């Protein structure tokens, strides 16, 4: 029974990591109908910049804030100077453009930080939290906290503020949005900024759990993307739920069936769901101006 709860805790922590990446995907998708496949690189940059800043003897809090700001700026620059000039009418080309960007960012990062992995100290003590035989790292708690916080902020922004409505309007009807006096470029810029910031926060929060290196974004990107697709790419809450689901299936699959098969089990589930419900678990049939 202890094992069962331990798997549950492990699954929730991994799921939280996937959810936090998925939220980034959805934010950009909702506004510009672009799947930003460079999302994983924001996590990588967040973690590695934090490692470097901490290396200069800066305090943890300051390093955290500065890294998030720097990654946000990088995200905005990418939108302003690259994605904005991409082929606006063609989402597929834009997605391929983001793949190119992710390879570029990874290449530059591998030149700057090398191919070695780096360790980042946990936010608080390294002592595990133990409760009747079930243990978890204090850092895991921070990860889950970060997911919930980001989720709340994004949900509030998108559903309860005028700014959120403006952003959402861009994805529904670009022309009508323009006619209403909303600048879609500004909204897309904001979406990239938000998604880069959330990626950086996630990257710093999860780095202490294992290690971080120039290529850490690839796997996280794939898992986060899977969560975003499984959740239906529509709202942050749906993809968060899907992220946790993937984490739990992984943990129980590895725990109860076989650790060698855990990825196969997850992706079988995703394929199965998408065959039955192509819009994802929480997605509605697309009524907007297309997209994927």
């Amino acid at each position, binding site marked *: 029974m202890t094992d069962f709860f331990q798997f549950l805790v492990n699954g929730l922590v991994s799921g939280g990591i996937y959810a936090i990446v998925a939220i980034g995907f959805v934010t950009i998708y909702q506004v510009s109908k672009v799947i930003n496949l460079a999302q994983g690189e924001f996590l990588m940059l967040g973690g590695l910049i934090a490692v470097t800043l901490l290396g200069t003897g800066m305090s943890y809090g300051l390093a955290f804030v500065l890294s998030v700001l720097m990654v946000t700026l990088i995200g905005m620059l990418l939108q302003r100077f690259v994605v904005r000039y991409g082929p606006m009418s063609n989402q597929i080309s834009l997605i391929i453009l983001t793949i190119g960007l992710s390879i570029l960012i990874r290449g530059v990062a591998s030149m700057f930080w090398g191919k070695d992995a780096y360790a980042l100290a946990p936010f608080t003590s390294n002592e595990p939290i133990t409760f009747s035989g079930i243990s978890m790292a204090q850092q895991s708690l921070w990860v889950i906290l970060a997911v919930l916080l980001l989720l709340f902020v994004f949900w509030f922004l998108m559903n309860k503020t005028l700014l959120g409505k403006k952003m959402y309007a861009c994805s529904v009807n670009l022309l009508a949005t323009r006619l209403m006096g909303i600048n879609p470029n500004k909204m897309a810029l904001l979406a990239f900024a938000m998604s880069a910031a959330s990626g950086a926060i996630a990257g710093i929060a999860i780095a202490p*759990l294992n290690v971080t290196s120039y290529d850490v974004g690839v796997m996280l990107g794939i898992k986060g993307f899977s969560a975003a697709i499984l959740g239906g790419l529509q709202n942050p809450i749906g993809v968060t739920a899907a992220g946790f689901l993937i984490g739990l299936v992984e943990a129980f699959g590895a725990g109860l069936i076989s650790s060698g098969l855990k990825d196969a089990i997850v992706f079988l589930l995703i394929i199965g769901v998408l065959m039955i419900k192509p819009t994802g678990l929480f997605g509605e049939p697309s009524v907007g101006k297309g997209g994927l």
Partner: protein
Amino acid sequence: MKTGLRFGVMSVLLVVILLVSACTGGKEVNSGVNGSLKIGAVFSMTGPNSPLGVPEKQAVEMQVKKLNQSGGFNGKPIELIIEDDKSDNTEAVKAIRKLHKTDGVVAVLGSSGSGPSLGMVEYASKQKLPLISMAAADQITNPAQSGIYKTPHTDIHGTKRIYQFLKEKGWAKVGILYDSNTYGSGWGKQLKKYAPEYGLTLVSEEKYGTKDSSMSTQLTKIKSSGAQVLIIAGTNPAPSTVVKEAKQLGLTIPIVSSHGSANKKFLELAGESAEGIYMVAGKLLIPDQLKADDPQTPVIKDFVTNYKESYLVLPDGFAGYSYDGLNMIIEALKSVDGDTSKLGEAIEKVNYIGVTGQFRFSKTDHNGLKEDSMVILQVKGGKYQLVN
């Protein structure tokens, strides 16, 4: 019209790609000094295997310089021609062909990774070109082919050495956790194969993916399996994540890690979680703690001093692999008075004490090492300490 334009762009791109690849194929040819002894080397200096290839290259460059300062080989300067295989199998075969056909080398060292090495083995054995590989895979020298050798310890040596240690400690119930890549699965196979021979029982067997962000579920299963010791087989950084998570999960059994993670990086990544972790490794990692009566001690000390002088860092195991390979080629050439046609067979008879271990080849064993050339270390106070 649009399709026509696209087609045009595509064909231009294709031509450019072809041109570029053709150009890299015909890299500049090292004009050999007349009468020099040419030895070729293929290392992975770029790409994922570059952490292996770079120290390997540095070690042989250092040794060739030293040999040439003391007169080279039989008065002839040694010329080392190094190629980069970019961690790619095809590039490695191209490189060895170039070294053989264009440069006319007498023997080749390399490559760093198992995949590229296996490609080179096929070429070298067909062309009767002596080859010493720096890669881990057992298939390189199993079955043993004439003229093909390798210097690193294999997973069999590591497995036997760890099991010997477990037996001494009386830890009979073993949990194993290994990477599902070539390196880890090789270990998995050997760990399963040799456990009965040492009277050990594998109570739990788990795998992980090289890029997995968490292995805590596998560790949970091992924790409740009743294992008395955990063996991890993988290359960095995953083993450092495993020991971090083991601590967070309250897994208190001793952990032994394979030589794939035995370096400074592991200590740096795992931090305080590394304390108490056991590791099987070559002796090169602890030059200061070696026994004085060990025949390897002076060889290792000499190598470490020279390497540190040249590159300001301590050498790791990879540097030792290529260093030993080069020295064995020179030794073998000495034994046949520089008759390069007999070099392939001559290496088999060389009796060489290297930094990796004591090499004693036989007709069926072209790795030549024994498990006693590995040691068990433990991390204490952020440093590797010799245990036995």
